[in-house]
């Protein structure tokens, strides 16, 4: 995917979010630190242009909720910022790449600390498969079959697949 493809996919996902939620009433966007934040920001910009409504934007670091603490070095990146209550909101979690689903499980766990959303949805730029938990995305930029020993990097400039250097 190139930069133009990323932009088109972002706008398509924004349209889908509006369609699914019948507008943006009570919709809040939460980008996962750090990879999902750029996409969350871009989705908010697109939603604003399309609908004339700018939903609240938060960021969430899930490090303290992961299930592999102690198994590998895990230090959080940037502090969470969710300065609003999530009770009865429709929360759209945004991340760059969906892989095992464990980050999303941690994110669902973390969200509970901020209230009880009416619904939680998931938007990702790339779904690369290999899920290890019963988690699926609601909005997908692109489905991209990969091998486990590959690494996927998704940013505003496009999507790269690289080999993990052992």
């Amino acid at each position, binding site marked *: 995917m190139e930069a133009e493809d990323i932009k088109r996919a972002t706008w398509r996902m924004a349209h889908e979010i509006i369609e699914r939620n019948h507008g943006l009433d009570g919709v809040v966007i939460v980008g996962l630190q750090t990879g999902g934040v750029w996409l969350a920001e871009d989705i908010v910009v697109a939603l604003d242009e399309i609908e004339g409504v700018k939903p609240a934007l938060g960021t969430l670091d899930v*490090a303290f909720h992961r299930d592999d603490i102690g198994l590998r*070095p895990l230090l*959080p990146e940037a502090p969470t*910022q969710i300065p609003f209550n999530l009770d009865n909101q429709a929360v759209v979690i945004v991340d760059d790449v*969906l892989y095992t689903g464990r*980050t999303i499980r941690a994110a669902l766990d973390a969200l509970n600390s*901020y209230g009880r959303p009416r619904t939680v949805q998931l938007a990702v730029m790339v779904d690369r498969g290999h899920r290890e938990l019963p988690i699926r995305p609601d909005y997908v930029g692109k489905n991209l079959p990969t091998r486990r020993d590959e*690494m996927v990097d998704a940013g505003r400039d496009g999507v790269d697949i690289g080999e*993990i250097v052992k």
Partner: protein
Amino acid sequence: MTLFPPKHLLSINDLGAEGIDEVCRLADHFTEVSQRPIPKVPALRGKTVAMMFYEDSTRTRLSFEMAARRLSADVMGFSVSSSSVNKGESVRDTVATISAMGPDAIVVRHRSAGVPHQTTAWTQASVINAGDGWHEHPTQALLDCYTIRERLGSVSGRRIVIVGDIKHSRVARSCVMAFTALGAKVTLVAPPTLLPPAAESWPVDVSSSLDAVLSDCDVVYGLRVQQERQSEALLPSLREYTAQWGLTVDRAARLPAGALVMHPGPVNRGVEIAPEVLDQPNATLNEQVRHGVAVRMAVLYLLLAAVPDLQPDEGVQ
């Protein structure tokens, strides 16, 4: 090369400037956690933190307990007054007994310097020094660094005056190490009888007059007058102390605008610091206590959850 994070926190030197910065960075995250509607994360679920306090403590002990609980760790309490120490059990046997129950960390406070260090030889758990004799109190210094960083942006380059009983103060020792490691300019002010001989070799300035350094500092850090040591006749009287080294209303008025008034607590109101000064917005005593929980969460997380740094993360998606 030393491992980071270290297994134990016995001294500020176990962290160094980089480690102090990392604790402060993590504490930002835990400050956010503490502000959540449900201020608790599962990061240390299944871990046990044992408290071994041989000396009185209110804030340090409560702060460590709250920090451990907010990380979902279990807490084993222990206080001398209700334990077998009263039946003559030695520190070594007590450590062995606690260790046999398999805690992941032991938080130790003892009136003798070196007990936390000695404890590491008797247990597999991480040992955290919560104050040992006149030696060190590293988590106090960390929360003070964090408080200064929060208020003034950074510790580096700040002129910090530490005033009071330096000699008997583990807080002063840890703070001097931490503040100077981060690049602050530290001046110690004390009656000559309450200055340790070793202070000459510390990277600090020494003055016997608070008035002389007051107008030229960013932080005044008052230490507690340890009244239990009054019998040693190191001070003429409390009134004399206040007249010479107390932060009175008059002296506080001569501080530069925005200069902080800090104290590790418990404070003797009207002795080290005047009650009116404690109520001013530049007095940070309650903030220090609040930050203590986040900073101790950071220390516990760093010691118990972060695997010693192997290599950068890859492919976490």
